[in-house]
């Protein structure tokens, strides 16, 4: 069984601080991590490898620095890593990104393609589903659990108030939730292997077959018109009252806002 896991290297937003004067993000010195939803997808793939045996390829599109995210995936137990990196890919929106990733995935054998639900730096949740569309694969998003059954996977799909159990024949694509598992640690020996024995394959535009008008900045229909910092909310009110009065007060406030 061949599994492809798409990962993205993102700034660790839990470590991002705001410049109090300009209100902008301070990205200097913020560590980069594997996007949590993607890491959960990798863990799910590794689980499947432990249980049934599988060959796992991790793939990312990004600058050369994204190499470390792939090494981390190798140190956790992935078998092969591909870094899609080329100036031609730069400036891509989700559509151009998914076009590029899909072109690379076409060159590989796969039964299951896994992508994280969404990246913590962009939060679009579009790339996974778009890859499925490019590859004409059935897709299930928001997966909170999976197991293999014969030539299909049984998936637990999260809804707002319930789960759906879905059986999908492979090949297919799923997008995974960070809540679905606790990713394993890298192993010390795994890190040594990731740097000394395994390779991160660098693929450029020449290594994939893709319409160059549909990738990179040129191939990105999304235009950012303006970016701004969200205004901060005013401080909340604090009332120290008895439980009965608190109930009344809450009801009153909800009525004021037409919630009830």
């Amino acid at each position: 069984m061949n599994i492809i896991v798409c990962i993205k290297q993102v700034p660790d937003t839990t470590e991002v601080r705001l410049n109090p004067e300009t209100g902008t993000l301070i990205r200097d010195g913020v560590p980069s991590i594997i996007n949590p939803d993607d890491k959960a997808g990798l863990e799910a793939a590794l689980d499947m490898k432990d249980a049934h045996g599988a060959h796992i390829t991790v793939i990312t599109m990004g600058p050369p620095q994204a190499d470390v995210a792939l090494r981390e995936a190798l140190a956790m137990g992935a078998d092969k890593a591909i870094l899609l990196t080329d100036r031609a890919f730069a400036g891509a929106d989700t559509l151009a990104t998914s076009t590029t990733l899909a072109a690379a995935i076409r060159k590989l054998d796969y039964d299951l393609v896994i992508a994280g639900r969404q990246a913590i730096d962009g939060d679009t949740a579009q790339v996974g589903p778009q890859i499925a569309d490019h590859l004409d694969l059935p897709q299930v998003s928001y997966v909170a659990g999976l197991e293999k059954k014969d030539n299909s996977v049984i998936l637990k799909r999260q809804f707002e108030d319930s789960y759906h159990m879905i059986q999908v024949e492979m090949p297919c694509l799923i997008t995974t939730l960070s809540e679905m598992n606790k990713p394993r640690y890298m192993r010390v020996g795994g890190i040594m292997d990731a740097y000394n024995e395994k390779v991160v394959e660098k693929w450029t535009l020449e290594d994939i077959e893709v319409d160059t008008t549909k990738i990179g900045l040129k191939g990105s229909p999304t235009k950012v018109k303006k970016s701004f910092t969200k205004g901060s909310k005013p401080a909340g009110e604090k009332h120290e009252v008895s439980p009965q009065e608190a109930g009344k007060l809450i009801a009153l406030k909800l009525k004021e806002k037409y919630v009830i």
Partner: protein
Amino acid sequence: MEFTLKKEHKLLKDLYQSFAENEVKPLAAEVDEEERFPIETVKKMAEIGMMGIPVPKEYGGAGADNVAYAMAVEELAKHCGTTAVIVSAHTSLCIAPILENGTPAQKEQYLPSLAKGEKIGAFGLTEPNAGTDAAGQQTIAVLDGDNYILNGSKIFITNAGYADVYIIFAMTDRSKGLKGITAFIVEKGFEGFSIGKKEKKMGIKGSATCELIFENCVVPKENMLGKEGRGFGIAMKTLDGGRIGIAAQALGLAQGALDETVKYTKERKQFGRAIAKFQNTQFELASMDTKIEASRLLVYKAAYFKDQKMRYSKEAAMAKLFAADTAMEVTTKAVQLHGGYGYTREYPVERMMRDAKITEIYEGTSEVQKMVIAANLLK
């Protein structure tokens, strides 16, 4: 000359930091309070290869170097001095002497299970009357057929009771003094070997520190480590390496205390502002940070020298001397900067201060480190 870490070291540091933050830090206060050996953490460290970091892969280790090992002890010690010394004693004092002095059969037999963390290692040199003066060994080993019969006792043995494999030193020929000391690999369960009283300590309280008792203990002669009469050299060389581990522990304790203090002084307000705004606080923090960085350079340099197969005895002694003194100074200042709260167990700095003191004592006191350094100068 480069001062940047190798790529694998950076990723290893990420791993150690996240492991220590998630698995070690939450238990640190409990392990101290209950004087409990954190066996569950040892198992988790074993799973990810932290119990055999500088051990070649052929013996089941991670195949990393001593810099990678020192960094692991440092990161563990930032949160828990106990966990750090468990790894240090196991790796530097038990695995290393077998790796460096063992016969192929001994390496085959003992290293894989130790490096994988399935078994824990320990080292027994100190006796009631033989501390810094190791030549005062009273434990004796007498050859009897195919076995050596050991009699005597060892004290202050780290990992005692939990360890499965012990490197033990005993006199095989008292008339030869230091040249009459021989090293042995003794397994838990060998006839005549038992664990004595557990010490109640000031710090590193979760670390098991006990007496070892040998009463006609039967050790097969193939378990002699190195040659007969070469035990003292093995012990000294082992301790040279061990000092890198303890220096890394001291470094981690100091860094952990500084990190806590930076956080606290930014939050704690007195006279209408955070105490970090006062110049005294800033000067103290700056001096703490500088000494810690100097310690780190000494520790990594000693580890690097060992990796390069260069002589590192003096470097390891300097690293331990400076890092241990820095740990004591920094943790004491950390408590001071925390004020009354720092003296309570609500904050971790009082534990770090208690844990730091031992780094000036075990595996060669600070005074012994000065003897080693001076001996190198004056030879």
